[in-house]
């Protein structure tokens, strides 16, 4: 009489896979992928290790060095690169795997040249035109956005929906590689993707004319020139 409803809930957040937490050998990610540190990066690694107290250098450096390896390899980490980091820092590989699976910025599946990270948390969801429209714009322009870590055919773009990126007053916004593109409309988003495809570059920051986080239309505070050194300083210093 009553049929069971399979919970096929349409989700804005798409099929949220954070990635599996075990390793499965693929053609691109296995122990045989070659990886050698560049000379520059070896200098950087030593500089990173120098920040930490004696005895803690190797362990504390795991996070920055793993990020360095990810940047050198091209945006993601195959298994052999994680092993290389463990060997360089003389820590058991499991420590590196723990860190790589816990933090969301370490990617363990291939990403495109431009990795689009769309913020979908509530302030971006309701601010401006809303993050859902930006997602539709990405889908229309480059065809990805159905699920996380989706790659385009030409491996130029990949998509991920991420949690709050910390630019909530500039909602809605995306992060592509290291840069924030803020105050977007769907047309802005498509233009950014077209620019990246054509020139490899698009202007970052707010797209609606703002400088940063002042109210649109002009700052309502800090309208006077800033005071100089010594203003209001107490006399007994």
């Amino acid at each position, binding site marked *: *009489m*009553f*049929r069971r*409803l399979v919970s096929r809930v349409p*989700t804005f*957040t798409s099929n949220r896979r954070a990635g599996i937490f075990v390793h499965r050998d693929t053609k691109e990610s296995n122990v045989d992928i070659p990886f050698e540190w560049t000379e520059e990066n070896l200098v950087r690694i030593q500089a990173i290790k120098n*920040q930490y*107290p004696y005895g*803690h250098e190797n*362990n*504390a*450096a*795991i*996070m920055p060095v793993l*990020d360095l390896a990810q940047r050198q390899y091209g945006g993601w980490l195959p298994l052999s690169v994680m092993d290389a980091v463990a060997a360089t820092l003389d820590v058991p590989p499991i420590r590196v795997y723990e*860190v790589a699976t*816990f*933090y*969301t*910025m370490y990617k363990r599946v291939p990403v495109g040249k431009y990795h689009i990270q769309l913020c*979908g*948390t*509530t*302030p971006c*969801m*309701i*601010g401006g035109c809303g993050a859902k429209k930006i997602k539709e714009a990405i889908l229309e322009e480059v065809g990805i956005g159905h699920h996380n870590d989706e790659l385009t055919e030409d491996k130029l773009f990949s998509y991920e929906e*991420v*949690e*709050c990126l*910390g630019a*909530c*007053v*500039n*909602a809605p916004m995306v992060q592509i590689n*290291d*840069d*924030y593109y803020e105050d977007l409309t769907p047309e802005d988003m498509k233009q950014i993707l077209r620019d990246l495809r054509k020139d490899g570059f698009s202007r*970052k920051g707010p797209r609606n004319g703002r*400088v*940063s*986080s*002042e*109210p*649109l*239309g002009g*700052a*309502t*505070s*800090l*309208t*006077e020139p*800033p*005071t*100089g*050194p010594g203003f*209001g*300083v*107490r006399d007994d*210093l």
Partner: protein
Amino acid sequence: MLNRIAKTAARTSARASGVINNAPMKDQDRIFTNLYGFHDWSIKGAEARGDWYKTKEIILKGAEWIQQEVKDSGLRGRGGAGFPTGLKWSFMNVPVTDGRPKYLVVNADEGEPGTCKDRDIMRHDPHKLIEGCLVAGYAMGARAAYIYVRGEFYNETSNLMYAVREAYAKGYLGENACGTGYDFDVYVQRGAGAYVCGEETALIESLEGKQGKPRLKPPFPAAVGAFGCPTTVNNVETIAVAPTICRRGADWFASFGRERNTGTKLFNISGNVNTPCTVEETMSIPMRELIEKHAGGVRGGWDNLLAVIPGGSSTPLLPKHICDDIMMDFDALAAAPSGLGTAALIVMNKDDDPVECIWRLMEFYKHESCGQCTPCREGVSWMNDILKRWTFGQSRGPEEIEQLWEISKQVEGNTICALADGAAWPAQGLIRWFKPYLEERFAEDVRRQEAAGISLEV
């Protein structure tokens, strides 16, 4: 000396009489003068705006003097908990006999939805933060400061690291910092995308290169912290205002706001407002004035307001009738009941679905939970599933409201860190203020399901 006694007496009597100074601020009283990046953020610009002025004299006054100034100013932690900062620093006064150094760790892992104030400090006014590290570090006897910035803030970290190099080059940091004879180092460490690392013990774990899973307290970080050494973890804004407090006087800072809620605060107003922005205003400013003066008002007018989340997503929402006349400070909002948190307002108007907004926050918490504690891992996941069904019209009836309330009460307070509390409170806020609406909506859902011949029974 007599002048000081007179000033203290005046301040005490003013506070005792419950004086509230929440008049709109003048620009000359604002601390973050380059908040929007209109001016030069490098050391030259910073010094022209008054940073690094008489830092040596402040340090030579002594650690006790600095701690007393910060205590007198009434500064409370700006990272969300609002713990009195002077008191927190005084926990580091215990002498260490086994040779361990002390550390200051600055929490720049700004992940709370709604909050984006530290971002502007780090990219436009980094020297305030760096000078603050030196002053605060000296006050607690620290040997070095680690600024832990969230990994997504790549460009902000760039600016910050550049500013640190500038400070070293000018002799403000390193050996004999500012010529005071005190050695102090500042290091910048990047995170890698975990909101839970904003919790102080998780941040310390992450600094040590492990997974960011919070530790039990006690032992508190002031006893055993980063690398096993006594540590204090403070928010960026708290540290960045410390030198200005020492320079301009604790009385000046305490003259804003009201008793136990003194000083200025960076507010982030986002969501359904006409001109979302970050602004530095006095504590205890009325919420309506804040939204209408700086954020251009609610989209559709003040009467179109549905609810406001006043302090970042971890604080319960407040409906319109409370927002009409509430003040933005720690005590007033805690009594509401809600909390000031990070002073990040998320404004929802009648065009938004409150259930969807709270569901998306719950999805955020489920994603960011580290997974250590069963109540958080399972409970938040369960609450997320319930809210997701509610959002898409698949609730099982009004009795689920009581169930969600009960789950949130079982999650709250039974975990190692406060992420679970931060997840439970928005759900409680939704139920507390929208219960009639929810009951009607779910009764309608059930009617619709029965009409379509669907059963959602497990």
